[in-house]
């Protein structure tokens, strides 16, 4: 480890917020990877009439749902699906945001004007109706959900990356590379990207938080994939069967709490990174 990254790690280690977030997220990632191997779950494996909406206990740690399936096993399977959707959607958002941000900042002129108009468009239109309309048109599959969340969430990143690119572009080493005759793509990938990367990373954390809430919301609204067991789908079924009126708290509380914990973990990490990377905030 270089001295600088060692220093950064020391700062993170002594930041309670960052560590709380990292540990919580770590636990959920481990559950998402190994959980389904230990507690298998099948969306089609309905129980008998006697298994419907059983309270916790009796061999079911968190009771059963309205189709007689084990809530705990569903929750574990949901961790994998929800976090996978969140991760892939974030990857798409970051890719588009970085590409547009760097191109816009580096090329300038008309390219910048057009790209920033498009970015503004995505920033200003209300995101949930846009997602709902897109998801309804594309049809409900897990890949469409990932695509819809990814394609709507990149505008903020593009703006931040553009601003950083504008400042990196003016530094002497870029000028030198240009005078050596390097091509645009070479400069953007080899010289600008590494310098905007820390910023992209900090944005990734916050985008991931939004992506997971978006998945939950879209699934709740009936746009999720019925063959997958995400936390959003659990809440969708819980609402549809009237779990709140039936007092089946074991059905609608756990998925919501899991979403809060994961999103909170991402938010805490993002908040702490902001504090670490922005010395002005630290001093306040």
């Amino acid at each position, binding site marked *: 480890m270089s001295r600088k990254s060692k220093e950064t790690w020391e700062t993170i280690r002594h930041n309670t917020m960052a560590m709380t977030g990292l540990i919580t997220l770590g636990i959920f990632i481990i559950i998402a990877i190994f959980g389904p191997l230990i507690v298998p779950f099948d969306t089609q494996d309905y129980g008998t009439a006697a298994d419907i909406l059983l309270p916790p206990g009796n061999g079911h740690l968190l009771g059963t749902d309205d189709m007689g399936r084990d809530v705990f096993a569903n929750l574990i399977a949901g961790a994998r699906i929800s976090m996978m959707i969140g991760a892939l959607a974030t990857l798409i958002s970051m890719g588009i945001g970085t590409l547009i941000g760097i191109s816009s900042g580096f090329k300038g002129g008309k390219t910048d004007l057009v790209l920033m*108009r498009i970015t*503004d*468009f995505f920033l*200003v*239109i*209300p*995101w*949930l*109706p*846009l997602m*709902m*309309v*897109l998801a*309804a*048109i594309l*049809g409900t599959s897990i890949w469409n959900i990932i695509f819809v969340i990814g394609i709507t969430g990149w505008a903020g990143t593009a703006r931040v990356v553009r601003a950083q690119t504008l400042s990196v572009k003016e530094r002497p080493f870029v000028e030198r590379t240009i005078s050596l005759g390097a091509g645009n793509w070479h400069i953007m990938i080899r010289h600008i990207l590494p310098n905007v990367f820390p910023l992209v990373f900090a944005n990734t954390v916050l985008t991931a*938080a939004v992506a997971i*809430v978006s998945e*939950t*919301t879209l699934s*709740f*609204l*009936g*746009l999720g994939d019925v063959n997958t067991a995400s936390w959003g789908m659990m*809440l969708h079924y*819980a*609402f549809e069967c009237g779990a*709140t*009126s039936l*007092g089946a*708290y074991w059905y*609608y509380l756990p998925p*919501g709490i899991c*979403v*809060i914990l994961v*999103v*909170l973990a991402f*938010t*805490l990490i993002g*908040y702490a990174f902001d504090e670490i990377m922005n010395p002005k905030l630290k001093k*306040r």
Partner: protein
Amino acid sequence: MKSSSVLQKILYALITIIFVVIFNYFLFRVLPGDPISMIMRNPKASPETIAHIRASYGLDKPWYVQFLIYMKGMFTGDFGTSFVYKKPVMEVIGPKLIPTILMLGIAEIIAIIIGIYLGVLSAWKRGSKLDVGTLCFSLVTYSMPTFWLGMIMVAVFCVNLQIFPIRGMTTAGAFYDSGMQYAGDVIHHLILPVITMSILLIGEYSLTMRNTLIDVLSEDYITTARAKGFKERYVLKKHAMPNAMLPMVTIIAINLGLVVAGAVQIETIFSWPGIGNLMYESLSARDYPVLQGIFLIVTVCVILANLITDLIYDHIDPRVRN
């Protein structure tokens, strides 16, 4: 305020609106599959019936003629006919506007007042229990799916405590002796959706208020004011607060996307008869013309609200004005 910058902002907003209108058209027409199959779900329909329906929706014309008809509709308020209600889209959407505006308006006012109050107190007593508490509240409400908060509210206040009605805007089948009685019933139904919406917004507002106020309090002119011997309360009220209020104007506009998202979810949970609930129902029924109409109206409203905030900001901030 330079008139050229105002014109530029108005022009940009107009371009965005035109972009939305065109985007909206292609969004619903580049769908995989034949629109006819969405309008009529009867596979046994005769070719004559299909041709008739195709003609009645203008689908037999070339795409550029369809586009011109669509654009003409946009300017005359003709958004097509609902698949489900068989009525013009505007007639379906119109009556739903008032309940949504009522719910969102009250929730926004409550959230702004409480948010500013909490933010000021947190900044004033930094590091106190109240400050930490407000921060935790903001982080948790930010992380919470809105509809889930609604479900918890229903479970606690409607099912367990039975203080508030579960659904709708009025009690089904009720007779009212007076207007007051009607208003009372509506308010009774309104309380929970409004509280849920306010909780969603308070965190963001209080955090923004707190952070800007802390920034402002570290400025030189505050030190000067204190050095002059003004009381702390006076410095806060007359010197710090007016400057800290500026970013609040922006955050309210930025939050409109969140408000719209919240409205869809909260109205769905409480069956509140507004735009959000209509959007959910149109989605379930795949009523594309209504969905398209709502998308367009909501988006244009948000763009206009952003434009207005931008112009107000220019007007009240003397640094931008010059």
